[in-house]
């Protein structure tokens, strides 16, 4: 194991919300097998904001999906608090996703036949303690576009709808796969501010995948992935305010 695991200062105080050890994920496509994850060991603490960096194909999305219960590990151990996710049944995973996790997908994945507001509502409809869809959309600056369909929105706007959708249910965990990928830096920062705000105000644990190393400055910890493994974890002594980031 070549990962330099730098234990967070005072980690003893902090509650582990995700625990992963020896996680592998193999995709089988006919004859070919692809090792997306090759043994990931990782702990994520409650209330922290982590940023995941790594080359394309290094396994970031795969790991995030497994943490969020969208995918299951081929081998290894994955726990959310006390709950085993590696062996969990489909039904348990569904409940887990519904009750605890907010997702922002790399490809937005909005429902084309629903407006922005309805795309958010479809999640708040089944959430335990959601904020009104309008409020979530206002947080991402889309209060004027609520009744537009995805096809009437730009890529960045669609991404912001996706973020509103993820935060509206006020989840315990927010998993974001390249939430700013399609945004100009100004809008990107605005979105990051929303994520940081949610993290601070609601004590939501936030994981952000990005290719943009600058974003790492706003994190508690930056996790580097390489070739399906955790390459290094760097702890920021001081989290930067997203407003101060420049790229």
């Amino acid at each position, binding site marked *: 194991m070549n990962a330099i695991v730098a234990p967070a200062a005072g980690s003893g105080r902090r509650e582990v919300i995700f625990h992963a050890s020896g996680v592998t994920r193999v995709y089988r496509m*006919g004859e070919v097998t692809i090792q997306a994850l090759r043994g990931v060991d990782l702990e994520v603490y409650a209330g922290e904001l982590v940023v995941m960096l790594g080359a394309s194909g290094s396994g970031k*999305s*795969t790991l995030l*999906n497994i943490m*969020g219960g*969208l*995918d*299951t590990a081929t081998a290894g151990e994955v726990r959310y608090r006390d709950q085993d996710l590696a062996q969990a049944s*489909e*039904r348990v995973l*569904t*409940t*887990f*996703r*519904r*009750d605890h*996790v907010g*997702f922002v*997908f790399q*490809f*937005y*994945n*909005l*429902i*084309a*036949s*629903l407006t922005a507001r*309805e795309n958010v*509502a*479809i*999640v708040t*409809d*089944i959430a335990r303690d959601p904020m009104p869809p309008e409020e979530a959309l206002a947080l991402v600056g889309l209060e004027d576009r609520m009744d537009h369909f*995805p*096809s009437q929105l730009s*890529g960045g706007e*669609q991404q912001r709808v996706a973020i509103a*959708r993820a935060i509206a249910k006020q989840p315990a965990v927010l998993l974001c796969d390249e939430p700013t990928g399609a945004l100009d830096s100004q809008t990107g920062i605005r979105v990051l501010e929303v994520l940081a705000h949610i993290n601070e105000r609601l004590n939501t644990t936030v994981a952000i995948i990005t290719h943009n190393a600058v974003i790492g400055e706003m994190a508690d910890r930056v996790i580097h992935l390489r070739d399906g493994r955790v390459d290094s974890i760097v702890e920021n002594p001081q989290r930067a305010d997203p407003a101060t980031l420049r790229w």
Partner: protein
Amino acid sequence: MRTLHLKVLRDLARLRGQAAAIALVIASGVLTLVFSVMGHDALSLTQERFYAERHFADVFAEVNRAPRRIADPLREIPGVAEVEPRVRAPARLELDGFDDPIRGQVLSLPDGRQPALNQLHLREGRLPERARSDEVVVSDGFAEAHGLVAGDALRLIIGGRLVEVRVSGIALSPEFIYQVSPGHLMPDYERYAILWMNESALAAAYGMEGAFNSLSVSLQRDADREAVIDALDAALARYGGTGAHGRDELFSHEFVTLEIQQLGMMAVVVPAIFLLVSAFLLHVVMGRIIRGQRDQIAILKAFGYGNLAIAWHYVLLTALIVLAGSIAGIALGAWTAFALVDLYMEYFRFPELSFRLQGWLVLLALGVAMVAALLGTLQAVWQAVRMQPAEAMRPPAPERFGRGWLEGSALMRGLGQSSRIILRNLARHRLKSLASVIGIGLSGGLLLIGAYQLQAVSHMIDQQYRMTLQMDVDVAFTDPVPPRVAGELRHEPGVLAVETWRSAPVRLHAGARSERIGLLGMDPEPRLRRLPSAQVGETGLPTAGVVLTDYLADQLGLEAGDALEIEFLEGRRRTVTTQLAGVVDEPMGTGAYIRRDALHRLKGEGPAVTGTWLLVDSEYEEALYDSLFDRPEVASVERVREAEANVREYMEETVLVFAAVFVLLAGSIAFAVTYNNARIAYAERERELATLEVLGYSRAQVSWVLLGEIALVSLAAIPVAWASGTGFAWLLNQALTLEFVRLPFVITPQLYGFAALGIIMASTLSGLLILRRLRGLDRVQALKAAE
């Protein structure tokens, strides 16, 4: 959940073209079911009610003349409930302002009241008054044809005596729902009438005082009908009884019942085929639509919607489409069934129609459509929810192309790039392509059976009237006459050829089975009435033995060479044994044929004829017709070409309406399926097509990628249509083989052409619609949408 319901409506709006096409398929399937079952049910219910209300008799017997007093003791026969003796007299009618001869039969009514059996349903007026001998009730078809109303005057000639009468009422009778003069197939309301008058009056006119010549009998609930018939025969034989028979041998009942049975068979077979095909199509199409929503299912799952909630969402979507289609199908089915039955009303004289939409039918229609559509839906949903949401959400990975046999083939190398894309697409989605081919093929098969019905009926009529019946005029005598009398007709102006025949009522027995029929004695080599068969066709009738319609031989369980017993029901009532010399293949009716001399021998009588066939110069036909009618010995004259025209008209108005409805529906289904197929192919290829355009392909090349695929699938579907259509037609043919009509199983090249043309037209139309869509293809939009 509210938003999810909203999504159902939004999806419906977005898929409206496809949803409408699917609803059309459902509506067509349901329509055929409701149309056939309701039409059949309405007729049979109407018949049943009319019979029950008017006390339709179970058994009938005709005698020469029996004293009235023997009627009462017949009630003592075990199983007999009611006995109604009456007088039946042939008559001629004269009506001011109508020159053609009119024939009819007059039946007696107990003076001034309804009989116990076969009561009249008075549509207008009243029964003859008790003491009056100059009042008659006339059949409503005749009254309608001549615009008769109560009070109108008629002249009757009964037994050579002129009787002046007035119409007291217009009525329908359960005995004469289908009114044809003896020996005819189709009604002629202008020239044939049924009349009822007081018994005392009729008996006086016909010389039947204190006697009867016709008997109606009703049976007790669990009576043994055959035993009653035997007992009646025994009691009536010495009065010239020609054999009692059940109502099933009464022409009106037989014809109406067979028609109803035939409708009943159609009501099972045709909707079964239609529903099965629609079910298959629904399954395929719904499945494909849902598979197109794979990513949306993944999103819902990712946010914590359970599989059940997701399945329910799509079930709702499907159910709405099915419901819309079913309701349309049920409404249109009921409406067309009503129209069909209304057509029958012109031929079948019922007092009123009983029409109902049965609950089970609605449930069945809805159930079949729902199950079929939901199976397709749930199967696709199941496939989608089984995937890890992470996987399902990824934009579809560039699909892998195998280097199959297709790749290296000369075919591939010879084609342009766009054509190669088409072939690869088809080869890659083998199952999907196959389902499309089968789906379109089946809809083409439906087209084929629709057209098959049209053609088979017309082919059958051709066979009967062009191949078998060669005469122009068929004359029947009231009583057997010496051959000389018929010979005289040879000298009438316009008569080109004469062939005589002798018909004798018999009962054929083969083991336990028996059948009442008129045994037709003909010339050794009849030329005016052919016997279509390999065995008899060339050489004429065998010197000894009987030839039967193959269907009748089957019914009796006989094969050529088998022994056969003939019981004559007139004259000396002999029973003789002969053999089945051969069978003839006739599509309509049943017949038993024998050489006339052999018939005389078996019957033990001298030469006599009961009718003659004439070949006539058409110029003289009209005049000849009138003069024949004026001959006292002539009972009926049928002009065969006219009969053919009537039969054709009847068939066109009934069977062909049925078939036309099916062709129309099959056409809609074919269109709906090809359109859906094209539409889905378009949706699946939208990105690819846009990409090709961006890469510099021309619109025409891009269009070809899509249209070429549609065209290829449609062409491949044509043989499937032929095969399935032939199978369907065979099924239908089996189902429709009833006593009266046996449709010949002939599939002509035209039928194949018709099915192929139908598919090509449906595909062309769909292609054009897709082309319009393709023109509006927004490259940017198509590429942007990441779903």
